[in-house]
């Protein structure tokens, strides 16, 4: 006698756990002949699909503002009970909906001519990861190729493209296993990805973005957050354990350098523990790295010294192109960019006031700078001709609730990467600068 209830249980189990080959074969055989159980199985699968469709929801923007506002650096004098009450009152006002239409105002003052017009690239299979979340966090170009990297709920993802519109997974995607990847860098020699594998700082290199070779930097726990290269000298920054414990409390900012593919640990003077160096770039004169509160400089990659504590908190990205150095991030829950000529003295750039969100990345090309990130309703982009005064690029279609996290120019054009909801997203930019 057939036990339909037992098959139903196996069908339900198979949605979350792998069945052994015997059970799987039994189920398949039974479903082939029993229409009632086939209908039940279809019902289970439909329920799972509907659950997936409603599982991810972006929270209201005020939640982000409240969380990041609390995380913003405390003002001089710190929090007082009065300020706490004021914060609670402001939150109450926000909950009551007494907000002004900032977005409308921003659109009115949007740049009349934006150097890049963004449009969403149709979603590709490469942007979805096993029904989980996936976002593309960094993108780099080498020649006529783009490599974008991301983190999904089931591990690292590396995708490549020639034109910025059609994307494929890297042939060697398996080389990343359960690694965490943080940054990708591209130059004439190819691509470099940094991150951590099995809790150890790791570098992956590839001449074409397709096939990758992994190198682990030592036995100590740690991770690499950013990589840059200039004139045959490559540097990577991140953190490394200072003790025996595996906890994050003893991780301190660390840097490595390589001239011939052999990586060596650098000396970082003034780095504090716990801490980590989060970003590095070549300024034209030296390498600069940041750890969130300090700026470190090095000309040879081997010895780093603290050159400034003047970079305001919230800076997460650092770029330079000839003249000025730009840092981007957020300040008190609002998008922010700072500029410096030497990495020592920093001044805040002017962005449209009142906006919530953050600047995730900045890049300059053909004399104008473009910044991307998130705003009150989703993806946001800004542009500037001098790095000091920035204008909103206006709304970008099909990007509500999304965020752009990085951008890069190749010989073929410019792309931005990020996510919309649980899916990775790519935007293609049309360069309209003269």
């Amino acid at each position, binding site marked *: 006698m057939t036990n339909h209830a037992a098959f139903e249980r196996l069908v339900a189990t198979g949605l979350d756990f792998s069945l052994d080959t015997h059970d799987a074969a039994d189920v398949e055989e039974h479903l082939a002949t029993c229409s009632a159980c086939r209908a039940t199985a279809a019902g289970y699968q439909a329920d799972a699909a*509907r*659950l997936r469709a409603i599982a991810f929801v972006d929270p209201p923007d005020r939640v982000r503002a409240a969380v990041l506002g609390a995380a913003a650096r405390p003002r001089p004098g710190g929090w007082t009970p009065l300020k706490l009450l004021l914060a609670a009152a402001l939150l109450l006002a926000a909950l009551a909906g007494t907000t002004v239409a900032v977005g409308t105002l921003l659109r009115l003052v949007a740049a009349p001519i934006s150097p890049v017009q963004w449009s969403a690239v149709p979603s590709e299979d490469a942007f979805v990861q096993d029904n989980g979340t996936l976002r593309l966090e960094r993108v780099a170009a080498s020649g006529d190729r783009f490599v974008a990297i991301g983190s999904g709920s089931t591990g690292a993802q590396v995708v490549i493209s020639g034109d910025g519109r059609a994307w494929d997974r890297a042939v060697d995607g398996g080389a990343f296993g359960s690694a965490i990847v943080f940054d990708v860098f591209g130059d004439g020699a190819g691509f470099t990805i940094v991150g951590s594998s099995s809790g150890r700082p790791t570098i992956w290199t590839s001449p074409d973005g397709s096939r990758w070779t992994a190198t682990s930097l030592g036995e100590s726990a740690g991770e690499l957050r950013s990589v840059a290269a200039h004139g045959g000298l490559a540097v990577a920054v991140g953190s490394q354990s200072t003790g025996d414990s595996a906890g994050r409390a003893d991780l301190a900012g660390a840097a490595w350098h390589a001239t011939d593919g052999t990586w060596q640990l650098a000396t970082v003077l003034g780095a504090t523990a716990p801490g980590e160096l989060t970003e590095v770039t070549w300024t034209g004169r030296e390498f600069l790295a940041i750890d969130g509160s300090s700026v470190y400089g090095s000309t040879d990659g081997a010895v780093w010294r603290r050159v400034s504590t003047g970079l305001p908190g919230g800076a997460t990205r650092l770029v330079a192109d000839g003249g000025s150095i730009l840092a981007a991030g957020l300040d008190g829950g609002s998008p922010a960019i700072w500029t410096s000529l030497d990495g020592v003295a920093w001044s805040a750039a002017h962005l449209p006031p009142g906006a919530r969100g953050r600047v995730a990345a900045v890049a300059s090309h053909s004399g104008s700078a473009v910044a991307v990130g998130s705003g009150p309703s989703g993806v946001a982009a800004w542009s500037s001709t001098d790095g000091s005064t920035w204008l909103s690029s206006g709304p970008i279609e099909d990007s509500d609730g999304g965020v752009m996290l990085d951008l890069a120019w190749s010989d073929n054009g410019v792309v931005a990467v990020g996510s919309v909801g649980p899916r990775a997203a790519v935007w293609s930019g049309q360069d309209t600068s003269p």
Partner: protein
Amino acid sequence: MDAIKPLVETAAVVADGSVPAHVAASLAVAYDRHASAVYGMALRSTRDPELAADVTQEAFLRLMVEVQHGRGPDNVGAWLYRASSNLIVSRARRAAVARRFAPRLLRRDTPDQPEDVALGNERQGHLEYALASLSVSDRIALLMAAQGATGAEIAAHLGRSHGATRTLLVRARRRLRDAMVEREARR
């Protein structure tokens, strides 16, 4: 007022120390990466947007406090699942008590989420009703699975054995299916 109190409590903890910039920056990254999963799970388990916003906010503020004290979790996603599901269970209990004294909140039990309207999918509405008929732990397990967590990960986050989680998930899926069949039959 219930939604305001937890923020002030957490902010008071934060006020005892400064928030280093790298903590703020990593919190922003963690928020962008996990907020839609945390809020999605909270919203779909509680069906209360205010409660879900409150849970999401507090989960991230607690994460900030952990990071600030050098206790940042190795797996932020797993930590957030654990923290938010604990908050959902305790808040849902508190909200159930509050509702007895505030009947107008029952209005929230109608499936009028804008995203449902946008989907135009009647069955999606059925699913929300059916989900609401399950226990909170059943809902959390199903939503974690829908967000891509494996059976083993769900077991770890719920603090249950692999076998117990397997039984819980199979039963939850069957209860959901039964509730769906019942709702669809009523149409």
